[in-house]
Each structure stands twice: as structure tokens, then as C-alpha cells.
């Protein structure tokens, strides 16, 4: 019975694998300084931005692609990628009516009906969405409502035009272009992304959200998110990703930077569902993302929550630098791999300030022929008095052809630190199944129940609006996939 369901799942088509017929404005394939100038010109960028891109590019060409992660894949050919693809017509839009109806259909298929949200605006639904398609921000909703509070929520391109002082100040401050290979690449070629600034003392009244979608063939998506929470502010930010089914591997290399000032709190949630490739492991997205937040001043807090179900190869470590005293970093993750997917994901917690605390809860589930690794770093610097960390990394194996791995790095240089790490690997216990079954719950439901319970700690951290989608995704990915 369970096997039937497993094969059903394995045979299941990727639901989001449609291509939208929108004419796109593409750059020629390849990467050189001219392409970067082309992108910069297309975006009508000021000189300093171009300089920054070129600096990053010149650094990037000196780098070699990293290979330390526990994943194996064919190295992408960086000269066979379209670095700029904008859905046409690209004009500044004031209302949804001006949006290409094809595009709207895409979003409806994705399950984010902007129109509905618009209709409900000011009532119950409290999500402002920035939609990024093939690296270009298409539409930001609720902008007006937000601006009343002084909140800036717009595309990155717009921010460069309208708030250059903020962009200049914070961009590159958390993830410098010299950070790693993909961060350098992103800094050179990023086309758009989201920008958000929450002013002092403002509690953002709604969830902010970005939807990323890769649409055009042969393109890479390189977006950049910059989120700043000024003193005493709070924001909850959501991010979702999908892509069409294609035989080739597409590259997604994003950079996300978060800055939390004094007493500020940022909650950043991701549901990542890029196309994972077919059941033979052909196609799918390479998801190589650099995400980092900094608790710049005292009493600030950054919390990452992620549900990773998609991508052929994931390579992602949302991190927190705990610089301010009493700052808090959190990382909650569920990573699911099936078929030939590979995930190497985890976090880094850098304790620099006094009395800093961090929590890491990571739940990995591997099925099929997949490999799922947790890789994390907890570093307590000298002088980070009374730092506290607790990490828990559990792995669940479904089937005997998959792998689950844990690679925690713990580096401690202060005697007042208390650091704990626990990891377990197991399959669903026969006794747990027996317990459920003896109470009249059938095998599939029992497995669903156990898996849900297993992930609950993380799913509970998701905002309501996202929890529904995440649970649906997990249900599709997991229920009954134990033999």
C-alpha cells in the first residue's frame, strides 16, 4: 500500500511546471563586461552601481567554483546563460489592470491571486507581494498602504533610483561581493530583487512577500534582497519560488541581506519549490544562495524559517551574525529531498556580542535516491560572554537508496559559552506505526501524522499564510512515502 503511494508520488508531475507565453526581453547569452554594462544600462543605473558590478565581476573571474559541499552535479557553463530576461512589456505599472493578463494567469496558477488580495485589501488579507519573474520585479502590491507608515517596499531597481543613500549604505555590508563565488557572480549580474526598509518604531502591519519565478529558457535568476529593520521595528517577510519544467539545469544564485538595528526583529520565511528535475534526475534548478543577516545592535533578533522541497541541487546557508549584545538568532528548517535531488543546507551562527543566543532546529527528510545534508557552523568568538547555542538536527530516511548526513562545525573561543548539539538519524519507528495502526489509523495517515509531528517544530514557526502552502507541499512530498 505504502509502496503504491510512494510510486504515485514518484510519478507525480511537478505541479508548477508551466511556461508562461510572455514575450521576454533577453540579453544575449554569455558573461563579460559588456553584458554587465548592458544590464546596468537596461536598468538605467547610476554610475556607482555599474562600478560596483564591474568590481564584483573582476573579482569573480579570479575565483574558482567551490566544490566542498556534499553534492555532485555538472558544473554550469557560465557562458551559456542569459543573464538578463525581462518580461515584455516592461513599463511602470500603476494598477493591476495594466499588467499583462498572461502574467496574471501565471500568478493565479501559482496560487497567488493578486486580484483577490487587492479586493480584500484593507480587510483581512495582510500580505504585500513583490513578484520577481526571471530576475525582474514585475509588480509590488500594497505599496501605497505601506508608504503611509513610512515603509519602503519596492523592487531593488526602484530602490537604486529612489533611495540610493539607503542602498549605498547597506548593500554589500552583510554579504560583501568577496564573500564567495556565487555572491560575487550575483553582485556582478543581479537584475532585480526586493528592497525593504522599516523605519524606526514601526511594526509592519502586514506580511511582506516576494514570489520568485524563473520563466524563460536558458536564463539564470540572480536576484538580490535587501531588508533593513531600523530601531524598534518589526517585520515578517516571506519568500516563495517556482520554475517551469525544463530538461536543462537552470541556475539560481541569489543574495539576501538582512540588517536589524537596536531592538528590531526580522522574521524571514522561505518556501522553496523550484523545479526539482524529473524522476531520473534530469533538469531542475541549481539553487546556490547566499543569505545572511546581521543583528547590528543590541537586543535585535533575526529568525530564518525555511521549507525546502524543490531544486535539483540546493546549496544554502542562511546565517546570522550576532554582533549586538543580547541579540538572538534562530534557524528553523525542513528540507525534503526525493528522487535524485541533493541538498546541502544549514546555517551559520556567529556570536560576537555578549549574552547572545541562537537556536538551530533542522529536520531533514530524504527519500528515493536523494542525498540530504545538514552543514552548520556555530562560532563563539573570544569575548562573546555568556553566549548560548542549542542545535538539533534530525534526519529521517525513507528507503534504502538515499542518504542523510550531518556536518556541524562548532568553534568556541570563550569559556563562558554553553553550546549543545544533538543529531539523530533514523527511520519511522515500527512501534510508532503499530501504535497508530492499533488505534484504527491506516498506514498512510499514520505516516502523515508522524512526519507532520516530526516537522511541527519548524512548521509552527511559519506565518499562517505560508503554513498552509508549506503543509500542502509536504503532504505531496511525503505522505506515505515510507515503504
Amino acid at each position: 500500500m505504502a509502496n503504491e503511494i510512494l510510486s504515485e508520488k514518484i510519478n507525480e508531475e511537478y505541479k508548477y511546471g508551466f511556461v508562461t507565453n510572455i514575450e521576454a526581453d533577453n540579453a544575449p547569452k554569455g558573461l563579460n563586461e559588456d553584458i554587465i554594462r548592458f544590464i546596468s544600462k537596461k536598468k538605467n543605473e547610476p554610475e556607482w552601481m555599474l562600478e560596483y558590478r564591474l568590481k564584483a565581476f573582476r573579482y569573480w573571474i579570479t575565483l574558482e567554483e567551490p566544490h566542498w559541499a556534499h553534492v555532485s552535479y555538472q558544473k554550469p557553463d557560465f557562458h551559456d546563460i542569459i543573464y538578463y530576461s525581462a518580461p515584455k512589456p516592461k513599463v511602470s505599472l500603476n494598477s493591476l489592470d495594466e499588467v499583462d493578463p498572461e502574467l496574471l494567469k501565471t500568478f493565479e496558477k501559482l496560487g497567488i491571486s493578486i486580484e483577490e488580495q487587492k479586493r480584500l485589501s484593507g480587510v483581512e488579507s495582510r500580505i504585500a507581494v513583490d513578484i520577481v519573474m526571471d530576475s525582474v520585479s514585475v509588480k509590488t502590491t500594497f505599496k501605497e498602504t505601506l508608504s503611509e507608515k513610512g515603509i519602503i517596499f519596492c523592487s531593488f531597481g526602484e530602490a537604486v533610483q529612489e533611495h540610493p543613500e539607503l542602498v549605498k549604505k547597506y548593500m554589500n555590508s552583510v554579504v560583501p561581493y568577496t564573500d564567495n563565488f556565487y555572491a560575487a557572480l550575483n553582485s556582478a549580474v543581479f537584475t532585480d530583487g526586493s528592497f525593504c526598509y522599516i523605519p524606526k518604531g514601526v511594526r509592519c502591519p502586514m506580511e511582506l512577500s516576494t514570489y520568485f519565478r524563473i520563466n524563460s529558457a536558458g536564463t539564470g535568476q540572480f536576484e538580490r534582497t535587501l531588508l533593513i529593520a531600523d530601531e524598534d521595528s518589526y517585520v515578517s517577510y516571506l519568500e516563495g519560488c517556482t520554475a517551469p519544467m525544463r530538461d536543462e539545469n537552470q541556475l539560481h544564485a541569489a543574495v539576501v541581506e538582512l540588517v536589524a538595528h537596536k531592538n528590531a526583529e526580522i522574521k524571514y520565511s522561505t518556501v522553496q519549490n523550484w523545479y526539482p528535475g524529473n524522476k531520473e534526475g534530469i533538469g531542475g534548478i541549481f539553487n546556490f544562495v547566499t543569505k545572511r543577516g546581521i543583528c547590528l545592535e543590541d537586543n535585535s533578533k533575526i529568525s530564518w524559517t525555511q521549507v525546502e522541497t524543490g531544486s535539483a541541487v540546493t546549496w544554502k546557508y542562511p546565517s546570522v551574525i550576532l554582533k549586538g549584545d543580547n541579540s538572538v538568532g534562530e534557524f528553523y528548517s525542513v528540507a525534503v529531498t526525493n528522487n535524485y535531488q541533493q541538498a546541502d543546507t544549514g546555517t551559520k551562527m556567529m556570536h560576537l556580542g555578549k549574552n547572545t543566543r541562537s537556536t538551530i532546529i533542522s529536520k531533514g527528510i530524504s527519500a528515493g535516491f536523494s542525498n540530504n545534508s545538514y552543514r552548520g557552523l556555530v562560532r563563539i568568538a573570544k569575548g562573546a560572554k555568556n553566549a548560548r547555542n542549542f542545535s538539533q538536527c534530525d534526519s529521517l530516511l525513507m528507503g534504502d537508496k538515499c542518504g542523510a548526513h550531518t556536518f556541524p562545525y562548532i568553534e568556541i573561543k570563550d569559556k563562558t559559552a554553553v553550546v549543545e548539539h544533538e543529531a539523530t538519524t533514523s527511520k519511522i519507528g515500527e512501534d510508532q506505526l503499530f501504535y497508530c495502526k492499533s488505534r484504527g489509523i491506516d498506514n498512510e495517515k499514520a505516516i502523515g501524522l508522524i512526519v507532520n509531528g516530526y516537522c511541527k517544530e519548524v512548521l509552527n514557526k511559519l506565518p499562517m499564510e505560508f503554513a498552509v502552502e508549506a503543509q500542502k507541499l509536504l503532504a505531496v512530498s511525503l505522505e506515505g512515502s515510507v515503504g
Partner: protein
Amino acid sequence: METITKKNTIKDKLLSEFELSKNSLFGNIELREHAAKSFSEQGIPNRKHEEYKYVNIDLLLKGDFSLTANKTLTSAQTAPAYFLEDAYNAVIVNGIFDTALSKLNDVPKDLHICSLADAVKNYPAVFENYYSKTLDVTADPFTALNTAMAKNGLFIHAAKNSIIEKPIHIIHISSSEENTIIHPRNLIVIEENAQIKIVESYQTIDASAKTFNNALTEMIIDENASLDHYKIQDENDWGFLVNTTHAVQKKQSRFSTHTFILSGSFVRNNLNIALDGEYTESHLNGLYLTNGNQVVDNHTLVDHRKPNCNSNELYKGIIDGKSTAIFNGKIYVRKDAQKTNAFQSNKNILLSDDGTINTKPQLEIYADDVKCSHGTSTGKLDEDKIFYLRARGLSETSAKKLLMHAFASQVVDTIKIDTLREYVEDKISKRFE
């Protein structure tokens, strides 16, 4: 540029020494050449090497090193070395087995202890069967180097069904007047149903210069055999030790290994255990007490190759001064190794502001019906416990000492040889003074 030249110097020197001496060394010359080639490709690992990320071997090997230690010791000089009572004591000076200094009276006839060169002549079948056969000599640069350059180390063979009551104590003595690199090599073969206890101790005597000790011990534990293994690493500040232990376990065998690192400027242990038969059992215990500028690096690998095996690992450390302790434990469960139970625990106490702990417990699992877990914790001495003891009239220092003793005793109590346990306890007490 300069550092690269220096690095090449020591590597080139080792390789040219190999070319000069290779014909006079025991064993298969092709194997040695194969290993030398691998070492020449890999070089001396630097910090970019993931397995040597936290130690700077380049820096340790800076300066001039002699490759031949010609020093001979007299029994008067080795007297301060720790000889275990009621045991067979074999002495190895700078990697070469020294019969005259050893005390190997009344070794039972089913236990064979001799130099490796003698083993090639006297026990060719055993030597051929096992020497370098169960390990990949190219897997690690130091293993390759040792295999290429090994001089006349020790061979221990316990015949089928033999039960050896007295422990065998291998005393590795480093003693040099100029900076030296040595490559001790031992082969231990325990045949079916045999039971044996082995103690290895590393000590420095009459030294006035650095000894970089690249030691390798191979152990084969055949079906239903049992080996109780202890390592006491107690070199002085002139001692720099890379100690690789490679054990292979066959069906239903039992292996427990205990590592005590008490001193030495630099200690790197590579402990690799392959559970290559069903129903085997392995225990790995370790205790490291570091101080001063010591660097202690423990790498363990438990490779579960067959189903129904158990492994259990416990490493504890107390870190003081400006010392650095590294723990890297890996549990590897292969596809076929269903019903594996593997546990690992690493606990550390950091006493000083300048100490560092880097710990990396890893799980790599390819089978689904397994129970594997690891845990690690690092902290200071519990304030509440200190308070409790002080409220009962103990001074702060003696309260702390008591707590550290209690912390260490979990590992020390696993020593089954009474005289050895007393020796280690005594050493630890002195350290806490």
C-alpha cells in the same frame, strides 16, 4: 612565494631521502614507491585541506629537519620511561624496535612479537596477507608518507584461539638532539577467537630538539577475536605526534580503544575503524587534557560496512591555557549496513579565556534502518555544583578539582588494567594540581 619554497624543501627532502634509502628498507618496494608517489602528489597538508583545517602543519614543519635519528639509548636512560608491571614491554626508539631495551621474557608461544623486518622472514604469510592490505595508503598524506618511509617497527601476532592474559606494552620513545621526523610503523594481527590487550605509550626521553613523529599502527581483528587497546600520549614539549591507527574488524569481533592525551606540543590522532563483518562491536573512548600552547586534534572515523553492528564513542576534554582542542568524529554507514546502532558523544570543558575548541561531529548515512546519533556540548564548570560543594566546606579550588575528576573519571574508569588506570589517575591528579 617564500612559504611555498619552504614547503617544497621539506617535501623534497623527504622524497630524496626515500630514493636514497628505499632499497635498504623491509617489505615490498613497489608498495613503498606507490605510497611515495601519492605523498608527492598530496604534499604536506595545509589549512585548506578539509581534514587539516584547524591545524597548521606547515608551521610545525618549518625549519630544518633531519630524517634519520641515529641516537641509541641505554637501559639506564630508558629507566624513567613507564614500564607496565606484569606485562610484556616492547621498546621502540625513534620508530625502530629495540630488543635490548625491551622486556619480553616468557612470551607465550602462541604470541609472536618481533620486528617487521623479522616478520617478513619468519611470518611471511601473515605479513603478506595483512601489511598495508586493509588500508588505502593514498587516503591521507601522512599514511602515504609513513608507508613509504617506515623503518623497522613492531609486529605482533596472536595465533588462533590464543588468550593472552598479560597486556603487551609498546613504548614509543622519541629522543633526538636535532629536529627529526620519524615514521614508526606497527602491524598487529589477532587471529580468530584470540583475546589480547595492547597498551601503546608515547614518551620523550633525553631530547633537546623537536621530534615529529608520524606513527601508524595497523590492527586486524579477525572473527570472534577481541582487542582491548590503550593509547597513552605523554610526550613532552619536544614531541609533535601524528598518530594514525587503522583497525579492521571481522565478524563478531570486539574492539575497544581508549586514548589518553596528557601532554605533548602537538597531537593529531587519526583513528579509523572499519566494521567489516556482521555483529561486531566497537568502543572508542578518549580523554584529552590540554594546557599551555598545546594543539590536540582527534579525528575518528567509524565505518559501518556490514549490518547488525554496534559502535559507541565517547570523547571528553578539559581545555586550559592557550591550548586548542579539535574533535572531528565521523560515523559512516554504508548502504548495506542495516540495523546499525552508532552513537557518538563529545563533551568539553573550557577553563580559560584563551582556549579554543573546534568540534565537528559528522554523520554520513546511506542505510535507512539504523539508529545513529551524536551529541556534543561545551561549557564551563557548573556554578551550581561548585556552590553545592563550597556550601559543604570545600575550597573553590578543591571543588573545581573534584568536578574535573568526576568529569574525567567516566573515561578513566573504562581502563580495565588496574596498574594502567592507577598510572593515568595519578597523572591526571598531578595535572589538576
